[in-house]
């Protein structure tokens, strides 16, 4: 199962994904899709460094699925983090 790294941005708490540029993006589609464990380990080390540098909080690897080219976390909790409350879809920004 492919993975991504999710976190909250420190200054405003916004949910962000580690992107190929090694920056952090609010849109899941802009995040890096991680296909193997070696890459997961390497990128988590990057994320932990960014946590130490006060860019983000609590980075975690999450499983995602790809359907019709669209990314979606497999766990409901992480899907809600990625796309916003299911009861307020009017607030969804991504």
């Amino acid at each position: 199962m492919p993975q991504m790294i999710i976190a909250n941005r420190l200054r405003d708490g916004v949910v962000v994904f580690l992107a190929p540029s090694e920056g952090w993006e609010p849109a899941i589609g802009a995040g890096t899709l991680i296909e193997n464990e070696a890459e997961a380990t390497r990128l988590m080390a990057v994320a932990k460094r960014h946590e130490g540098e006060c860019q983000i909080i609590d980075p975690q690897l999450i499983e995602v699925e790809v359907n019709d080219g669209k990314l979606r976390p497999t766990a409901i909790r992480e899907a809600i983090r990625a796309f916003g409350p299911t009861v307020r879809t009017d607030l969804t920004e991504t």
Partner: protein
Amino acid sequence: MYRYDEFDSRFVNERVAQFRRQVKRRLGGELTEDQFRPLRLMNGLYLQLHAYMLRVNVPYGTLSSKQMRKFAYIARTYDKNFGHFTTRQNIQYNWIKLEETPDILQHLADVEVTGIQSSGNCVRNITADQYAGRAKDELADPRVYCELLRQYSFLHPEFSYLPRKFKIAVTGSPNDRAAVAVHDIGLRMHKNEQGEIGFEVLVGGGLGRTPYIGQTIRKWLAPEHLLSYVESILRIYNMQGRRDNIHKARIKIIVNQMGIDKYRELVDQDWEFTKNGVLKVPDDEVARIDSYFAPPQYEKLADQTDALAKIRSGDRAFDRWVRGNVIEHKVPGYAIVNVSLKAPGKVPGDITADKMDAVADLADRYSLGEIRVTHRQNLVLVDVKQSELYELWHKLAELELATPNLGLLSDIICCPGLDYCALANARSIPIAQDISRAFTDLDELQKIGQFTINISGCMNACGHHHVGHIGILGVDKRGEEFFQLTLGGSSDQHASLGDRLGPGLPQAEVPAAIRKIVDAYLVIRQQNERFLDTYRRVGIEPFKAAVYGEESRAA
């Protein structure tokens, strides 16, 4: 209303400045998250699923229109245009930016509200009957003692690091609307044999993973001893409470493990040393605080029974609203108006910034500028002239705030659940929305009668599911959301914990299950019997059979 004195005001402003420096140090890398987390939590700032969440206390559920307008301003300026009133009479904002939090706290301090002690292992917001000072059935206004306890427990050095959080609720009425039996300490004002007003003190109640109904530790306590006695309860808890296991750290665990008699003995031993000391509350201090809660200058009015009856007979919708949402006021000619935040399909407790402003305007125009927040997640206008009820009803109806469902099946308590909360296992709000949409027929709701549904998205029970006539608990079963139903709970003066009905149900089946329970109740109830009373009379089996089929009887 209580107003900050110079000490309160100076302290809260200093605290904002202190937090501003702490945020700067965190953003600048001088503090790690582990170092910073307790500091932000002490100011009510959590990190939830989508962003930081700020919880702001509404002490004993009393708000001025000015404070409500400030809540609207915060929602509009710093969040996504709405706030959520909680089961602890607080308001929560869901998309707060850390870097803006000091400014928000300063805005709140300007109108004398804070997030201090809305989190952490300390004495939390002290809650009260939402009709305090106005209810006809009340012995005395409990807010005087809430405020006394608030001042006493605010940053108390001995009790700022308790084993776990600590919740106190007070009712001045024999009809408990403050759920005092499910608090760490519950205080019920009542008269002793000499006719003096004091407190029955309950201890060790609580919900969450291990629910308990509070037990009476003292049948009658003189008000002058309130602080010293509460302090002794807190001190024994502080010494004996389990710090090794977060799930066993609340006072309810220790009270129930050692037994109420032993706990009482320890408290009494401690209290012997303090009861006549500095914590003995002087009458003039009670009088000083009491003066802040003095009733407003009411006009001398007569009850408008005939005039109202005439309007009600010509307007069925108004009649229904008066019957459901308007409560008797202790002053002739006035009424208490409940403002429902539970229109069909709405999120219980949520209110937009524009509606907050509108409610503040209505409070100024019709209710002497005061608003109350209820633990059932509604609002109240407490001082409305009966002669203006019809006009007010029209204005509330335009705002979708006049759903006449107070205490009826669609007046659902619901925690934020997995849509917002980092602790939740399942979404609770969609269940509340589905149920309220399935029961929109007002005639049917009235026919069903008094009925509480309380929903929690995890076993922490912020939605008070254990004490709903029907409780609904969201659980995670291998990545899928399921919902367990309990029946027979109540948080009033005859509090009880619900019994589990059976296996959990998927979300789509919950409204139908509620319908089956209601249908079964309507068949077997005796005249005018509430669901809760029917349940207590017949037990769980008929409802189990209704939901799971007759085979469940044999199982």
